[in-house]
């Protein structure tokens, strides 16, 4: 690897490096300078520096987004820098920013530096996960996210629920990691590659005959189980309610939004880029099924929608309700994942629909968690009874909660409605002649009609029932502003979704103008100009031929 190449890679990785430095900086600052300060003071100092740092990272990403026209690949896909990925990274960093804002001066722990440090490490994991197209990197990044979130979930060591949630999350997560690793190793074993593009190459044309398909099938199955845990799809969702309920609310928000985005992007990429040839079909259940992951994903989707929605009906705790609703939403997204390759050819709008929906979903959910945090910390808990009569105690936050709940339920003109429409339209589009996936879409729509019931049940607590405690509930202006902005975005993205859709479709239409060329685009002033045809110090993209 020559020096200009390394410089270029470092240039690509600037925001990640800044993020990493920020994490170390926060940890060190806390130890060196603020050790003796009061917890409140440390929160202020470190929280502000984290916010400033994240804003900086966000802007670096924004610059990269505007600057780039090409896709750069480092290390055979261990790190892929494309505009689409950058968009997701901006979303993740933005969500982390909101998480920090809503958790500002959180009373959950005295280990302030570690709280922010771990949170930043988790964001780093998400960022790497989003940009990786390599099995090994996917696994390591997922573990980085998970490990930090286990710890953050159990961060409130004095509270029994927090520790219980953390332990459950940890055990389930460890279990799922084992499944995932097993599955990934089988995929590697069957195809001989870890890079998703190369795996796809190994599954094409006459190469396909050499691949032991049954072994690959086992690998995919186990990988789906492992990733199913991470995205909390039924029947692998059992950790979610306890972790959401037990975790400090900002952490729960992070689990529900940032890590969801990253995991879904990884899952989509794995199936869309790496394994499209093994998709099989789930059309017109069950007469036109043939083997592949589409059928399995369809079953997981149906289970998630059913279990998520019906279990959510019975909840009396807002965070548990959101946990089960997130299971249901994972199901809706999986519907579109089924559609990616349902009829042998890629459905053009399936991937953009998934991307659009996860962004919408994360945005809405972080808003909801923000409101839960604001109200919960003042009202003394986040059971339904603490939310009773909130419309009069805090009209502003209640209105926002109403918007978020209705968006999750899919009521126009909010973003959730168009997101669902887009997802389901993409799924039907997979086989427009025979409407092959309509069975799944019809089920999803029926289930989302069920979901309105529990979202309304929560808003009923806030709007219909009288308040037991007439005192007003207020939150700080920063929180109010950011939540208000999220609410506005949810509304605007619902009324004018065309711009966002356009963006995703463009980015997805031709995401890889350059493959495996870690060289910069035409000379840019700030980068030392390297030799244009320079390959990275790794072998050529052609599959490494077995020696013996």
């Amino acid at each position, binding site marked *: 690897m020559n020096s200009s190449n390394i410089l270029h890679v470092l240039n690509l990785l600037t925001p990640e490096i800044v993020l990493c430095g920020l994490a170390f900086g926060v940890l060190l600052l806390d130890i060196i300078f603020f050790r003796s300060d009061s917890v409140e003071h440390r929160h202020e100092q470190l929280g502000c520096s984290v916010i400033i740092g994240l804003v900086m990272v966000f802007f670096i990403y924004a610059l990269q987004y505007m600057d780039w026209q090409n896709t750069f690949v480092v290390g055979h896909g*261990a790190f892929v820098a494309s505009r689409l990925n950058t968009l997701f990274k901006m979303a993740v960093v933005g969500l982390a920013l909101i998480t920090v804002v809503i958790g500002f001066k959180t009373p959950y722990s005295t280990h302030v530096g570690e709280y922010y440090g*771990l949170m930043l490490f988790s964001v780093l994991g998400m960022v790497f996960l989003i940009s990786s197209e390599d099995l090994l990197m996917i696994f390591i990044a997922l573990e980085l996210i998970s490990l930090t979130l286990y*710890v953050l979930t159990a961060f409130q060591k004095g509270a029994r629920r927090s520790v219980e949630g953390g332990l459950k999350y940890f055990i389930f997560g460890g279990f799922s990691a084992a499944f995932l690793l097993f599955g990934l190793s089988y995929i590697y*074993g069957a195809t001989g590659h870890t890079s998703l593009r190369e795996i796809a190459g190994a599954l094409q044309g006459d190469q396909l005959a050499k691949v032991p398909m049954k072994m690959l*099938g086992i690998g995919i199955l186990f990988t789906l189980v492992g990733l199913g845990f991470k995205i909390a799809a039924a029947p692998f969702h059992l950790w979610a309610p306890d972790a959401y309920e037990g975790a400090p609310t900002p952490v729960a928000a992070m689990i529900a939004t940032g890590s969801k985005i990253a995991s879904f992007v990884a899952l989509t990429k794995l199936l869309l880029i790496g394994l499209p040839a093994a998709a099989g079909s789930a059309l017109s259940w069950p007469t036109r099924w043939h083997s592949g992951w589409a059928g399995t994903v369809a079953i997981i989707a149906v289970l998630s929608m059913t279990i998520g929605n019906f279990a959510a009906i019975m909840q009396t705790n807002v965070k548990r309700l959101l946990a089960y609703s997130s299971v249901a939403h994972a199901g809706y997204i999986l519907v579109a994942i089924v559609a990616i390759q349902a009829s042998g050819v890629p459905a053009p709008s399936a991937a953009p629909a998934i991307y659009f929906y996860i962004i919408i979903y994360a945005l809405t959910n972080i808003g909801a968690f923000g409101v839960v945090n604001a109200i919960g910390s003042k009202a003394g808990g986040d059971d339904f009874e603490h939310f009773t009569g909130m419309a009069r105690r805090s009209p502003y936050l209640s209105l926002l909660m109403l918007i978020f709940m209705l968006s999750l339920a899919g009521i126009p003109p909010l973003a959730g409605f168009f997101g669902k429409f887009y997802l389901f339209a993409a799924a039907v589009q997979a086989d427009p002649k025979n409407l092959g996936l309509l069975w799944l879409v019809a089920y999803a729509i029926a289930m989302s009609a069920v979901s309105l019931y529990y979202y309304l049940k929560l808003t009923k607590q806030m709007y219909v029932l009288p308040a037991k405690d007439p005192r007003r509930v207020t939150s700080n202006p920063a929180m109010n502003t950011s939540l208000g902005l999220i609410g506005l975005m949810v509304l605007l993205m619902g009324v004018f979704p065309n711009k966002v859709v356009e963006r995703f479709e463009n980015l997805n239409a031709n995401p890889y103008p350059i493959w495996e060329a870690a060289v910069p685009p035409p000379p840019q002033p700030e980068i030392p100009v390297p030799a244009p045809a320079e390959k990275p110090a790794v*072998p050529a993209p052609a599959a490494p031929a077995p020696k013996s």
Partner: protein
Amino acid sequence: MENSLFYFFSVAMLSCALLTITCKNPVSSVIFLVLAFFSMAGLFVLLNAFFLAAVQVLVYAGAIMVLFLFVIMLLNLPAEEKRHRGWFGGAASIFVMVALMLELSFVAHHEKLASSPASPGIDGTTEDVGMVLFSRYMLPFEVASLLLLAAMIGVIILSRKEKK
């Protein structure tokens, strides 16, 4: 020869792993775990992954497990009491296990695995591993260090006694 060694190590590893989770006494659990790691190292050797085998013995069996044993002996943990479990969980897990085993053996039976593309193309010597790890997989390698750091911080935070 190679086949019989493979079966020997596999059986040893599986039985040691089973004993690890069924033993009531923590100390013997740990000993069996060490044995399981040793057998795994044997399997690595059979696969020509010498570096991995050495690391397995040195790091896992050697360093980590000794530390484990040390802690357990210091803490002087009592033997675990028998816990009552519902029949449903047991039955379900046995069912899943049997189903998976059948599936895997089906695959093993039907696939000509020897010809699979992933048959090791390189020797697992230190040099080869180092070459791959520091060129192609450099980024994952670096991120793994962050992972370890995060895990360390987490452990310290969670295990530390809080000042009241």
